[in-house]
């Protein structure tokens, strides 16, 4: 099947290809920019909204009201004609609109009926998110040609099932749809939502203030409606005898894709990147190749973006080459590529925050101070102002250059969770110092 309206993809590779004799690790930042298709309405879409209706949503009752309003805003933002459904999540998944398990095309009457059903939502019951995901997966059946997107809103811990149940449900849904996750209040678990969003290639964020939820839902739907191509994969070819050490999305946020490889040939594998609209993302690829001698040149990796068409045939959207050239000139081989250095720092920043908060939770204040201090240093050096601001609510910064900090005695749960959920957000090269 030909897909004439696929967006234009540009792939650029930033690296220092020069290695000293005997070295075998090649690092590169692969920047993928999609210019978007002819128009946003060109692609087919399908949408499911999952709203937590467990008993805790009533405490305080403003949460349930905010969830209703946000769901209504989302329903309004769905493009005319796009099939959608609303699911209530408790210890089971239950249809809110329509009442049976299928998707209804968005139009004036279906939107009105959906909003009427949402207004009747009442909290009550437990939380078993795997049940919600399984229902969403069933709803998307038959819509495989469309760009499938879900929103998941919860306010509490996934307490009425085991982590394994959730893990299995996520694994079954991987590649079936993308899912943006939002936590409302401060009783939910960042790690749980991060796990879902990570597996289903969506975003995760905290909505501490319920009044902000409607705008956030609208933005998520608009983002999903702007996608022009579903199920794009980053395909990496690497030579015989090499190993891919890691593949990470590093902008707009850090997502480790290393474990998501699906082998597509003896020397090639695919990493899922989900759906694309007009946007730009950066990937850090690290390959270990056979060490070479001075004068050798090798293709360390060929990075291509491929889209699967209806018949499962891969179509290349663009490619870039990651090279290795061995040189005796130390002036060439010791130069650190600016993009690689920057994103190595951004990935370490995300790790430092998550480790620091974990240590703080466990009462290991020395580690917490050291890791969060390092995070302050990295955030300041790279010009990551949002993260710097969030860090300042958790630690008192004495010197951002050396990373000297003191843990705050009292930190609000919301501030801590905001820092945790947003720790993987990165900034691009060019902000902050030009080092």
């Amino acid at each position, binding site marked *: 099947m030909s897909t004439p309206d696929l967006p234009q993809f540009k792939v650029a590779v930033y690296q220092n290809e020069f290695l000293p004799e005997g070295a075998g690790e090649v690092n590169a930042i692969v920047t993928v920019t999609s210019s978007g298709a002819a128009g946003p309405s060109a692609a087919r879409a399908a949408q499911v909204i999952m709203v937590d209706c467990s008993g805790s949503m009533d405490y305080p009752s403003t949460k349930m009201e905010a969830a209703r309003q946000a769901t209504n805003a989302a329903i309004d933002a769905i493009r005319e004609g796009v099939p959608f459904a609303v699911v209530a999540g408790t210890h089971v998944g239950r249809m809110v609109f329509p009442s049976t398990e299928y998707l209804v095309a968005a139009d004036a009457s279906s939107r009105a009926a959906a909003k009427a059903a949402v207004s009747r939502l009442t909290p009550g019951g437990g939380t078993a998110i795997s049940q919600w995901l399984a229902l969403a997966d069933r709803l998307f059946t038959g819509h495989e040609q469309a760009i499938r997107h879900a929103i998941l809103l919860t306010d509490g811990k996934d307490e009425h099932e085991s982590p394994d149940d959730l893990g299995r449900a996520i694994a079954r849904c991987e590649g079936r749809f993308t899912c943006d996750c939002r936590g409302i209040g401060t009783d939910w678990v960042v790690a749980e939502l991060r796990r879902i969003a990570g597996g289903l290639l969506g975003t995760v964020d905290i909505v501490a203030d319920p009044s902000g939820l409607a705008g956030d839902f609208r933005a998520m739907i608009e983002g999903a409606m702007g996608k022009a191509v579903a199920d794009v994969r980053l395909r990496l070819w*690497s*030579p*015989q*005898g*090499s190993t891919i050490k890691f593949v990470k999305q590093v902008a707009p946020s850090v997502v480790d894709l290393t474990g998501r490889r699906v082998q597509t040939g003896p*020397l090639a594998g695919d990493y899922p990147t989900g759906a694309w609209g007009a946007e730009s993302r950066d990937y850090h690829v690290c390959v270990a*190749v*056979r060490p070479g001698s*001075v*004068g*050798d*040149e*090798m*293709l*360390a990796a*060929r990075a291509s973006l491929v889209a699967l068409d209806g018949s499962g045939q891969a179509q290349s959207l663009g490619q870039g*080459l990651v090279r290795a*050239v*061995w*040189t*005796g000139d130390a002036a060439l081989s010791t130069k650190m590529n600016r993009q690689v250095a920057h994103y190595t720092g951004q990935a370490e920043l995300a790790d430092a925050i998550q480790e620091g908060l974990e240590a703080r939770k466990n009462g290991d204040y020395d580690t917490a101070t050291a890791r969060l201090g390092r995070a302050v240093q990295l955030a300041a050096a790279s010009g990551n102002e949002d993260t710097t601001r969030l860090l300042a609510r958790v630690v008192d910064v004495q010197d951002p250059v050396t990373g000297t900090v003191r843990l705050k005695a009292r930190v609000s749960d919301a501030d801590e969770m905001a820092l945790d959920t947003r720790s993987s957000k990165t900034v691009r090269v060019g902000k902050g110092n030009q080092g």
Partner: protein
Amino acid sequence: MSGEPAHGGGREQGAAQAARGPVCAACAASVQPEDGYCEACGADLLVRRAPGPGEAAAPCPDCGGTSFTDGYCDQCGRLAPSPRDRWERDLHIVAGVSDRGLRHSRNEDAMAFAVIGEGTEFPASVVVVCDGVSSSVDPQRASQLAADTMVDLLVRALRRGEPAPVALSAAIEAAQQAVTALADEYPDRANAPSCTAAAAVVERGRITAGWVGDSRVYWLAADPAASCRLTDDDTWAGQLIAGGAVDEAEAYKAPHAHAILRWLGPDAPPEPPHVRHFAPGGPGLVLVCSDGLWNYVWDATDLAALARDGRDGLAATCAALTAVALDGGGQDNITTVLARHPPYTPAEPEPETEREVEAAQTLRLPPAPEGAAPRTTVHYDEGSAS
């Protein structure tokens, strides 16, 4: 690329050719003794030109793989072997070797040469060596384009009877335009393909050298002590040496000594090319080479001693000089081209049937007008070659 003309077929074919009369080497049509150009295909019968490096067809030296994508082996990722890695061309009175060396992954040097009017009263050889600027992208595109462009223009101009200095100056300027035009294909114009160029036109009793950058032309006299360098490098060190302030060994010790001040390509300084001519006192060899050779042996007398007057044949002599640079470490691409002066095969007893095509002997090129007004502005360097 023009094919080998009537008398370029090699000695084995000589007898057969003589038996059925001269033929055009490009299309095998019969040609008349008075023809300057082939009536059938238009090939220039008085020009014999070394073919370019050609296309690759070799298996991967590392894994034996035979399929390549984007210029790399589909199995082991190794850079596909290139015919440029080492190529040798031999026109007997001119021969050259271009070699990747031991420390670079690609050969970014290029060479091109031709002999004109063999057997006529005015024979000439033209030689061009270009060295791609490593800090530019795809420098081998620049170097080969510049070398080919210059030989094309030199051959045509000399066949028209233009004086060598004028032809050489115009050829370098044309190469500059051709290489600069490549920059349109590159987003980063400042790093678009660039190269150096050194060229020599060898005529009876006169050698004309033209250059931009740090590739060199040497006169290697039969008596090594009478040898000399005909070019001055466009480098910081080259300027110091030309100014007489320091000797070569001293000048090139400085950290940025090799940084070139002039090149062919975008943003090249808009000065006219250097052109200098020299009257050799007798027979000898003209060496045109890249810095991959002269970095190992820079003294003209030493080079002449190594070349041994080309007594083993010019191709073997080029290979021997290249081997000296490789044995020394092969830090850079090495390109070595030797041309005989005077530009014709030294008299040796040959059976009449092996003489090259009779047709050529009856033709006369128009003489280079002595003291004719140059048709383009030629910048003659101050001072004589030393």
